[in-house]
């Protein structure tokens, strides 16, 4: 039986549409995974000596003190990214396989997930370093086993709370509050949690406690899944009550308003697009890293332009990048309805422009960091409107991966962002304005640099009609390929 399950899993992995991607995207993915492994390894080996150097106490005790944040962060990260094991259960339900076996297999599968294995790259080297530094082996092993169990506890907690946003947000807010109050020294949660982890080290046999909790959680998850393994139970798609909205205030924009109404509903009602927009909103604060001097590497003058483009272009990058894939599930309708390509494209363009303007207004607080900071934001906004808005639409013509609006799981690490042509198009989006600024900055003065970038943006604005005709042509040329690609889910 297990052989069949593993065979199915093997095929579903290697035959999935996402797997068959461009070879160099695979390389990029591998590099990404390698990067994480190296970071964890480096942390594992280096953490001990680093903490020792800082002389803030026994490295193991310090690690234990902050372990609660490590685990909390892990849980949040898992909640957002880890896939749930229920996806392939449906076709197995009516086959002569006992439900327990199916559930056991699905849960067992999560054990070997990357989200669990990755931690080994931190904990194993860290424990080895402890041993070489003369910590008593028995105690280190006890501690190690206890934390391993806790990581797996997280795994099963995540399985159980998945799709229960309330639980997630409560936990997330609790930890943000805890972190903030620690930072401002109101209340230090680690004073209470640190000793728990020390305990596993001081009395190694207590490691059995987290293992017992783990077994309990496993059975909890098992019972939960088994009980809900019905089409109208845990396997049912969640239905939200729909409300008809008219958004009549947009009617004054004519045909454009029709599309804008639709796009607003698209953003509001689908998980995937909502998270893209939220991610975009966070970009507004990205500039803080630059303008507060928080990171030394960002102190160079061009980084200000870089920041300005990101601060106002969050929506442009997170949402605009994937036009027209947002409409992929009903693209044939859009292509055969009474819609001119130009109208469709300009509605997306206006959406990006409106969002950029809103971001610029919200980013007014950068004035606090001096006129130069806000000038960078303003100039970035002009460049985004004048140049980058065309570039994302242009790049979109080559994006041919359908988006599943209702699922959030592929939101990161999706191959569509890494299409050779779209990647090339990011160069003028980011590098060109920095270059233009540099010319002004070094030849004349910083002010001239800003003016140069702004003029460039305005020029793009002037040529709107010409550029649109060109982009329209590209979309028309790519239309049949795009339709074909969206069919394959």
């Amino acid at each position: 039986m297990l052989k069949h399950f593993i065979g199915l899993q093997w095929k579903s992995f290697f035959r999935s549409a996402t797997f068959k991607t461009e070879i160099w995207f695979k390389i990029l993915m591998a590099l990404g995974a390698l990067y994480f492994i190296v970071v964890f390894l480096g942390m594992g080996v280096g953490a001990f000596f680093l903490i020792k150097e800082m002389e803030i106490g026994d490295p193991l005790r310090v690690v234990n003190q902050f372990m609660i944040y490590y685990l909390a962060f892990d849980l949040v990260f898992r909640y957002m990214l880890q896939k749930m094991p229920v996806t392939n259960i449906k076709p197995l339900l009516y086959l002569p396989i006992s439900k327990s076996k199916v559930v056991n297999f699905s849960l067992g599968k999560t054990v070997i997930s990357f989200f669990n294995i990755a931690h080994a790259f931190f904990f194993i080297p860290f424990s080895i370093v402890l041993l070489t530094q003369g910590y008593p082996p028995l105690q280190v092993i006890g501690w190690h086993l206890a934390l391993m169990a806790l990581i797996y506890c997280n795994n099963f907690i995540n399985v159980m709370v998945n799709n229960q946003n309330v639980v997630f947000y409560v936990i997330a807010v609790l930890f943000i509050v805890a972190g903030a109050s620690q930072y401002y020294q109101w209340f230090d949660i680690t004073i209470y949690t640190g000793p728990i982890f020390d305990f596993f080290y001081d009395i190694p046999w207590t490691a059995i406690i987290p293992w017992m909790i783990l077994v309990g959680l496993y059975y909890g998850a098992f019972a939960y899944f088994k009980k809900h393994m019905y089409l109208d139970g845990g396997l049912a798609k969640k239905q939200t009550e729909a409300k008809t909205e008219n958004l009549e205030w947009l009617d004054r924009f004519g045909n454009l308003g029709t599309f804008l109404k639709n796009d607003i509903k698209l953003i509001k009602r689908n998980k995937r697009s909502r998270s893209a927009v939220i991610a975009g909103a966070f970009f507004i604060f990205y500039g803080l890293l630059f303008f507060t001097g928080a990171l030394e590497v960002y102190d160079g003058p061009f980084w200000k332009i870089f920041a300005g483009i990101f601060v106002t272009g969050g929506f442009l990058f997170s949402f605009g990048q994937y036009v027209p894939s947002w409409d992929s599930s009903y693209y044939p309708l859009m292509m055969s309805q009474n819609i001119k390509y130009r109208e469709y494209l300009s509605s997306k363009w206006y959406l990006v422009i409106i969002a950029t303007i809103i971001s610029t207004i919200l980013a007014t607080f950068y004035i606090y960091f001096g006129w130069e900071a806000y000038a960078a934001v303003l100039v970035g906004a002009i460049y985004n409107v004048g140049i980058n808005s065309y570039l994302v639409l242009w790049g979109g013509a080559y994006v041919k991966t359908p988006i599943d609006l209702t699922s959030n799981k592929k939101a990161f690490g999706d191959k569509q962002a890494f299409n050779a042509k779209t990647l090339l198009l990011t160069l003028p989006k980011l590098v060109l304005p920095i270059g233009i600024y540099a010319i002004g900055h070094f030849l004349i003065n910083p002010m001239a640099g800003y003016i140069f970038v702004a003029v460039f943006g305005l020029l793009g604005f002037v040529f709107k009609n010409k550029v649109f005709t060109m982009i329209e042509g590209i979309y028309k040329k790519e239309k049949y390929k795009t339709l074909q690609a969206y069919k394959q889910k």
Partner: protein
Amino acid sequence: MITVHNLTKTYGQNTVLNIEHLEIPKGQSFGLVGNNGAGKTTLFSLLLDLIQPSSGHIINKDVQVDQSEDWKPFTSAFIDETFLIGYLTPEEYFYFIGELRGRNKADVDALLSNFEDFFHGEILGQKKYLRDLSKGNQKKVGIVASFIGNPEVVILDEPFANLDPTTQIRLKGIIKDLAAKEGVTVLVSSHDLIHVTEVCERIVVLNKGEIVKDIHTSAETMKELEAFFAG
């Protein structure tokens, strides 16, 4: 109304459609039948410029569909669920299509009131998004949406599949009326010989991409079709 000239569609070595000439006059109810893979959906997709012909072309009321977009205002279609926008409620979807076709809310409401029977109380005011409706109800929405804005050509792919018997009977009445009373050219494809013979004045049989029969519907049509498909 619609003229097909030397139209072929090939994928690699495989010719999936090859129609030398086909003329569909205005106001005709036109039925397309054939087994799986006969090329029905391919022909409809070509009519809507969703795929490119390998050779030849289609003229829809003086507009060559793969050259100009001007056929869009008077042509509407429901092929499959990719013509529905999952995150809209049925009402929003109808108004959206209405606005694209220059019809305001009142116009759309007036049209929808004619279909209350057809909807059987399961579509309007249900507080559900289209993606949460059953397949049959989704189909009803798509079909009715294709009637919005007085199109001159309506293309429906397999409209009877997935519908319950009551709705099938009502749909047959609607399609007949469209062609007879309003002069709309209706193109329907189906696997169900009984439905097509009842609804369509003319039936074309496709087999492996080629037209093998072109019949003006009469009392004998059903027998003729059965004889053909029985092989």
